[in-house]
């Protein structure tokens, strides 16, 4: 059951991720990215990380991608004109990606430490949200406050950047 869900959502996620590379229209890229993020949220749920899955749908598939689509609409981006492909750059890109993939698969498949099956969780399960809240406000309260400051400064920065004239 879990294995079937993993294969289904992982395949779907990778197919949509691949279509971001291949599709020419930025709106279809953004929509396949949304689908990829939703499948990723489902993968988080198969890993018993329900809170992260919900956050993924809310923040990424919701807020961030709406922002992307809004900017695409605002700039009125058309389909990318098919210019002459820079052959060297394309070849270099494909080579870098292929080298990364081959090294990664070799490392992961050769190390027996990564071949472990899913360990069973112990005892009565406390709810995921409760455990995350306890960890967040016990051990990570300072980074949490810093994130607040970061979001505020990002907001101020966006307002300054999007004024009509930069002084």
């Amino acid at each position, binding site marked *: 059951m879990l294995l079937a869900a993993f294969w289904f959502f992982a395949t779907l996620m990778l197919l949509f991720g691949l279509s971001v590379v291949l599709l020419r229209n930025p709106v279809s*890229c953004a929509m396949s990215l949304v689908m990829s993020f939703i499948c990723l949220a489902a993968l988080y749920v198969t*890993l018993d990380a329900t809170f992260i899955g919900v956050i993924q749908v809310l923040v990424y598939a919701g807020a961030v991608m709406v922002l992307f689509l809004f*900017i695409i609409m605002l*700039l009125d981006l058309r389909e*990318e004109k098919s210019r002459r492909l820079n052959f060297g750059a394309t070849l270099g*890109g494909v080579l870098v990606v292929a080298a990364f993939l081959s090294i990664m698969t070799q490392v992961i498949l050769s190390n027996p430490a*990564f071949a472990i099956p899913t*360990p069973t969780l112990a005892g009565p399960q406390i709810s995921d949200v409760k455990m995350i809240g306890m960890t967040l406000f016990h051990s990570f309260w300072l980074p949490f406050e810093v994130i607040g400051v970061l979001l505020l400064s*990002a907001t101020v920065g966006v307002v300054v950047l999007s004024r009509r004239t930069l002084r």
Partner: protein
Amino acid sequence: MPTLANYLIASGLLFAAGLGVVMLRRSIIVIFMGLELMLNAANLSLVAFSRYGLVSGHQNYNAQILVFFIISVAAAEVAVGLAIIVSLYRARQTTHVEDLDTLKF
């Protein structure tokens, strides 16, 4: 049950897709989407390690907190990045990276 290696390879393939977007595409907004894809691949491997490396019978919640922080930093980064793209478009009327070669030697 899927093994840890399954999740790590899925995450690596997603990262490769993001890397491919950044290397091969020429529209700056699509390149930015590729960056998001790579961040999410890193998140997936963190959540997988949190599930497979149990701490006294529970998932390692420190990893999930790190994912939470990565998501919030990424949200701030997207907002600032898109504002930069908008002001770039105002100044140059283009989002094609090959038209932005002022810094090219």
